[in-house]
């Protein structure tokens, strides 16, 4: 229960002023430019876009600046902003197979056409703090090497090319033309289709999805995954505006995709075959895409005839708790005034204690009388 409490206006206004001052920090230092955040904090920007569920690097950077770098607060700001905009269209499904690849590795196959392309990755860094980055004057303008040749214009998915024996399940589109679940328009509904699960995971909190993914590989899901492929790059977005009547490309977005190969499965009727999980994020979000792919696979248990025994396999548990904005709203609302609530409970505890004291006293008297 909430009570309207008056008198906080000035305190709130002054709190906003205090936040503004603290956000700015030492005014003797240069103020951060949003473009600097876009360029130099790109991975934070990418996370905010993915979980804020709006692809717009400048907006995500602005949100990060406003939230003093707090990713979840920035995600909240972006989610709030999107509600002010009309939706013009739904895109055609992006074609990640036509991505302009900047990174593509496979842990399952060594020799993949086009090669293992590491791209910009921290995987092979030593995780030693680089004090050169803190040095006065900065790092100047480092330059990457340039190969003679570009990568191929399009790299078909590794699993499509290399699984000639059909040992890995294929993904087919057999619901073409049917409506696609949209969490921004409908609330969760169970049992959830894969469309609902994937959208929920794509928007889901990275830490939560990562923890669940980890659990599936540690005995809470029986996962034995191999990364079939992780790829990063730019993909065109295509829409068909009603007034044009034909499709047009409106730009390119950066996405990270993970095709995870997982435990195989066979029945008397069907020979053994590896199964798959899928992850996709805006920007460079490899940890998120891989986690998503593992949890996607775990939640496919029903469809694949497995028992749902563990948290990551329980779609109602996962989907209901993955959204950090909902979670933050609920967890942190407890700090709002609950004065009357609490007074009522205090009253109850006082009464219980009084009753207890009376009972103990009476029992004591009875005992004495009996002796």
């Amino acid at each position: 229960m909430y009570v309207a409490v008056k008198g906080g206006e000035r305190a709130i206004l002054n709190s906003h002023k205090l936040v503004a001052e603290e956000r700015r920090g030492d005014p003797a230092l240069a103020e951060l430019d949003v473009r600097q955040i876009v360029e130099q904090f790109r991975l934070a920007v990418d996370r905010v876009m993915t979980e804020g569920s709006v692809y717009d690097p400048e907006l995500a950077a602005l949100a990060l600046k406003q939230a003093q770098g707090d990713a979840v607060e920035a995600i909240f700001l972006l989610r709030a902003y999107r509600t002010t905009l009309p939706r013009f269209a739904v895109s055609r499904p992006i074609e990640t197979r036509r991505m302009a690849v900047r990174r593509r590795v496979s842990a399952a196959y060594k020799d993949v056409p086009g090669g293992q392309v590491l791209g910009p990755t921290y995987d092979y860094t030593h995780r030693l703090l680089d004090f050169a980055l803190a040095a006065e004057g900065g790092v100047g303008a480092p330059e990457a090497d340039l190969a003679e040749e570009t990568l191929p214009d399009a790299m078909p998915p590794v699993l499509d090319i290399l699984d000639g024996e059909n040992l890995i399940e294929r993904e087919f589109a057999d619901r073409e033309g049917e409506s696609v679940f949209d969490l921004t328009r409908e609330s969760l509904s169970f049992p959830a289709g894969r469309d609902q699960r994937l959208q929920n995971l794509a928007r889901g909190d990275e830490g939560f999805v990562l923890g669940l993914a980890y659990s599936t590989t540690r005995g809470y899901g029986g996962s034995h995954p191999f990364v079939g492929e992780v790829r990063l790059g730019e993909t065109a977005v295509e829409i068909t505006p009603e007034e044009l009547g034909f499709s047009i490309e409106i730009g390119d977005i950066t996405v990270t995709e993970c095709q995870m190969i997982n435990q195989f499965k066979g029945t008397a009727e069907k020979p053994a075959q590896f199964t798959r999980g899928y992850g996709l994020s805006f920007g460079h979000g490899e940890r998120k895409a891989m986690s998503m792919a593992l949890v996607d696979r775990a939640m496919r248990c029903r469809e694949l005839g497995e028992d749902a025994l563990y948290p990551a396999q329980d779609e109602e548990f996962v989907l209901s708790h993955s959204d950090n904005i909902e979670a933050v709203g609920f967890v942190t609302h407890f700090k709002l005034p609950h004065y009357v609530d609490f007074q009522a409970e205090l009253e109850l505890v006082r009464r219980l204690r009084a009753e207890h004291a009376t009972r103990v006293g009476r029992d004591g008297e009875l005992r004495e009388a009996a002796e």
Partner: protein
Amino acid sequence: MTAQAAIKDGDAGIADRRRWMGVLARAGREELEEAWTALPSKPAHRFMRAPEIGLVMVQARAGGSGNPFNLGEMTVTRCALRLDSGVVGFGYVQGRDKRRAELAAAFDALLQTPETRDEVLRGVVEKLAAAQAERRALRSRKAASTKVEFFTMVRGDNPR
């Protein structure tokens, strides 16, 4: 259906128009401004739909080739304007830059106008497309420099 094709006889085909709209959508604000400034004569136009910011829901496919799902939205700005000649141009561009959408729409209208098409194709669209191809190639060559050359691999076994 009473609607009719906007592309009339003598006008460009849809394939051409899709291509130039894609190129214009990817062009930067400065590039478009520069190209606009360089036009010998700028046609008068009025908005049929003033530049407007909105969202497009981006869909992807489960497993890359399976059934569609909603990944998340992206910002987009659109504009429709009409030249004095009556030709209508459309701009749909990623992001929230209204001027970019306006310029994209203006060029789309000029490209549908037979008298200006060739000049704008050559002077604007092809230049923008070349710059975009160059940027893409540069990114790709940087990525290609990080390709692993396994010791055990014989070059001849690994056709590009």
